[in-house]
């Protein structure tokens, strides 16, 4: 989620019955970021991925 939408994501997690749902947080906004900014945001997501998608054994 971009930073400014974190509260929306948390609310949706709650209302969809998964209050502890994990997500990655990247800088806002994406729409006006340059390529370097987009790359940084992509790396942030990947860094969070291992915790979110992979099992404890994989980590």
């Amino acid at each position, binding site marked *: 989620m971009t930073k400014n*939408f974190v509260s929306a994501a948390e609310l949706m997690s709650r209302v*969809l*019955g*998964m209050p502890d749902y994990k997500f990655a947080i990247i800088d806002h*906004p*994406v729409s006006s970021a340059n*390529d370097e900014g*987009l790359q940084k945001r*992509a790396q942030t997501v990947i860094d969070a*991925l291992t915790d979110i998608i992979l099992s404890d054994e994989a980590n």
Partner: protein
Amino acid sequence: MPIHVLDPSNETSPPIGELAPRLNSLAGKTVGFISNGKEGSKGFFRHVERILREDYGVANIEMRVKSNFSAPADPHIAAEIPQWDAVITGLGD
């Protein structure tokens, strides 16, 4: 004498969701991207794909773009998710 008034809120509980099983590794896997198609998203997902392939050995990326960024993913996209090992989507602009 107290006044009785009704609760205006929905008062129903949401359905309980369930996490899909976590993966042991991303190597050789298929990862789906569900993009809202907003400005910047193409470049962003291009970088995510590159890193996943180069650093994590992901074999296949399925890129899907929602037809309406203000609505949930199209039913035909959601129907594909079970065929993927993982999916990356987001919220923001």
